[in-house]
């Protein structure tokens, strides 16, 4: 696997060691006003960004931590956190 991922605990490691945890969609929705539709969207709908996306990874064959990285889905390379857009 050409991808490398930087674990906050272990540093830059081979992509084989990690498990993908999906796009970063924020915390579980609030109980109030929750509809089956909005729940389903939260669980199953993805943005599928063609470009830089924030996503979760687990260092499963390492320290076991879950963390987020930014990855350019077009090049499959990890990138620095893009500066907050104004």
């Amino acid at each position: 696997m050409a991808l490398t991922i930087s674990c906050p605990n272990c540093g830059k490691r081979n992509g084989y060691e990690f498990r993908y945890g999906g796009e970063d969609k924020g915390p579980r929705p609030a109980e109030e006003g929750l509809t089956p539709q909005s729940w389903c969207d939260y669980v199953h709908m993805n943005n599928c960004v063609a470009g830089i996306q924030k996503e979760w990874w687990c260092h499963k064959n390492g320290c076991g931590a879950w963390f987020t990285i930014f990855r350019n889905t077009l090049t499959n390379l990890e990138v620095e956190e893009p500066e907050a857009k104004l």
Partner: protein
Amino acid sequence: MNRLTKLPTLRIDPSENRSLQYKGQTYQGVAGDTVATALYANGVRVFARSLKYHRPRGLYSLDGECSNTCMQVDDIPNVRTENTLLKNGMQVKDQNVKGSAEFDWMGFMDKLDCLMPAGFYYRTMHKPASLWPIAMKQVRNAAGLGKIAPDFRMKGDYTEIYPRAAVCVIGGGAAGMTAALAAAESGLRVVLLDARPWLGGCFDYRVSAYDQEKALYQRARELAKAVEATPNIRVFKHTAVVGVYNNNLITAFQVGGESDSFNERYLEIRATSVVVATGCIERPLLFENNERPGIMQVGCAHRLARTYGLLPGNQAVFSIGHDLGLEAAADLFDLGLQIACVADIRADGQDPQLLLALTKRNIPFLRGWVACEAHGSRQVEKVTLSTIDGSAKRQFGCDLLVASAGLTPITGPLTLAQAKLKYDMHTGYFLPVDLPAKTHIAGRLTGLQHALAIEASGRLAGLNAAADCGFDTAKSAAEAGQQLNALPGPERGTRLVSAPVKGRKSFICFDEDTTLKNIKQAIEMGFDVPELIKRFTSAGTGPGQGGIPGHNLPLLVSEYQARTGAKPIPTTVRPPLVPTFIATYAGANHDMCKRTPLHDLQKKAGGVFRRMGVWRRARYFSEDFSCREEILNVRNNVGLLDASTLGKFRIHGPDALKALQRVYVSNMAKVAEGRVKYSAMCNDDGCVIDDGVVVKLAENDYYFTTSTGRAGETVEWIRFHTRYDGWDFHLVNLTDAMGVINISGPNACKVLAKVADTDLANEAFPFSSYREFTIRKKIPVRAMRLGFVGELSYELHADASYMPALWQIIEEAGQEFGIRNFGVEAQNVLRLEKCHIILGQESEQRTNLLDLGLGFLWHRNKPDAKTVGAVALRQTEKDPGRFRLVGFKMEDPQRPPRDGSIIVDQRIRGYVCTARKSFTLNESVGLALVDAELAALGTRLEIFEDECNGKRLDARIVPMPFYDPQGERMKM
């Protein structure tokens, strides 16, 4: 054939014999020979027949650029024998022949080329449609490469390594070696790869002067020595690069030598910076019969003599387009080859020194001439030369025609790294216009031919690569750059592809039998892009991976189209760049599995082990796989089970309970001290993924079990579902640190009472409770009274190191009662009689908590959004179209269906999860998932399985559990 045994450039050891079997005879070669050179030494000239036309094919390159020397070696088809090292006792066969390579009954196919124009396969055999299957069978019979036996098993050892390198240099020629040395100066870890079994590249076999003192080959050996003496350069020889990926990941495979422990090994190299110094191969010359045996490339002829000590022929004609051809002619002449004529397609631009060398040797030299036809049916006997425009012709007799139009850089690795290639008018090469990050090129690949310039470019690339790794090499790189600029730059290359011929028998691709005429046909049919012409004519899609037509095809297309300003467009390449065994990709076949702490004891006790998930577990304890005795002993007496594979976890910290509440469907606040709570975990779709028990060790401190299959993912699962919360808890996987013994049966209490330092009376330690005590005042255990098998039963959890002792103590104590082991299969039947589910057996991916009848576990007052799976459960609650878990009895008590059999009426209505003959009940019982509307008690089910001979098996839905419905036995 006599070997030239005294040459200093040899890569063979003439004193050491190797032999192979070919056509029922033993052929002698020597150490260092390839299979093809050994055959060549024994006079073999025709190695194979071509794909479509069954034309004879001989040695042409020496680096596996075409399928000409593909043979079957030790039952492996399509082995490129020209770069496969000879090993003693190899069994070699020719392939794609009826008869032999020399006398092939299918040779008449060559006359039928008019019936097979470009793309005939696609265009001619589809109308009427019924023709296609017949045609396909015939075509496949006549064409094709080797055949593999259906029961063939790959022999040998295949391994893999994953080296890390600061700088990876692809190509161990002069440029690659100087690059590696330059990068290594900074102390960086350098990996150097070369496809040949030695370093040296194009210097290796050449005796021309490098400087006043040394010949090129001496310089190559000097560099190789320096490289091998540098501790931070790791050299992989006989290692072909097959893939280059982003992030500078390089894959390659290495062929093992006689002293290596592996046959081939796969390498995956992650490098910070990459230097590509792959050099050049030759660009074939197109003329009529340009692939007759006896025709070969310059490097092939030269290296046959210089590397393998084989003079390639007696009387030769050269038709070449670059200085290496002139150099080879002079050198081969000195080694004893007679040369009738050297024709150079270039009108000017030759190295005057080389021309002088030819003159001195009285070798006739023709400028602007080219071979236009080779004659001879099985081997070249005569060649017609013509001027480039075809205005004049001459014939020469010969048994060797050395032919080469020019050079072409090996850019495969660069293309894979996403470098854009563009046609360069000066060199005539496809060269990268912008290189990917941290990638450098050096050597002949860039068009350089001058030895010092090749090395200077290597040094510059090596220093730049070191700079990528954070070293300040700016000053030395600037010096190296100046040095390079002072030396001769890239040399002008030739553009001519084809002699002035119509091209009916001029082959642009040997592997696929594609001729010049085929390409012209394709263009006339409207194909204009080389990539599409490649697809349509299949030129370049064979084992050689475009090595032969890769450069010529785009040149030819742009020339033939004659559009003004049309620049040649290269075709694409894909990994693997060279044919690779799937066995090499598969690598070592380690069967890695875990053993419980009781493995050896169980083995001694006659356990029959099976692989279950990551574990090897004792499934049976006798050859009776129905486990009758094991089962009845648990029901009537007492049995002992190794349950150490259960997932075991501790979670503690202020927020431990919150985490449990998140992932379990039950109200975990209700876990009381001294009690065992059974619960389940669902995923966000409400589907059950795990079940197990939780006990409270202390405040904010819990111990819980998961099913065997989930043990590996549980920590990850809980952390994933709490990842946004920032809760403070610690989660420890104790699965391997602790073992579990299950002691079950009506006499279980009596056995345990003998060794446990606690009161086991029903009042003191009732069903579904949890206690901690010691065994024989020594071994601390966590004990749970559970009833998975439906009897009085204790589950003892203890540290793994205590397990063998604990087991032996209990076994000894139980001897007077007749205690015996039971295995996983006996447990399976016992729990089936009790209708206790095993996830994965009674569930699959779609099965949710409610389907299994476990809805009572779900605590509906917890906030849905805070419990994984609750929202979906709420939604599916009213869904009538789901499966239900039901228990059934077979009408025929002796005939349980197979697990996984389907339940049918007019269509499939469900499937059997587990079904067994129950000795306890003297019935055949089972659990099944069926459509909810069939789930009512008393419903008749019809079961179909492969073995039922079309006669469906009858079953009836009955109440669950089948055994001890009141649950009295586990509470006694």
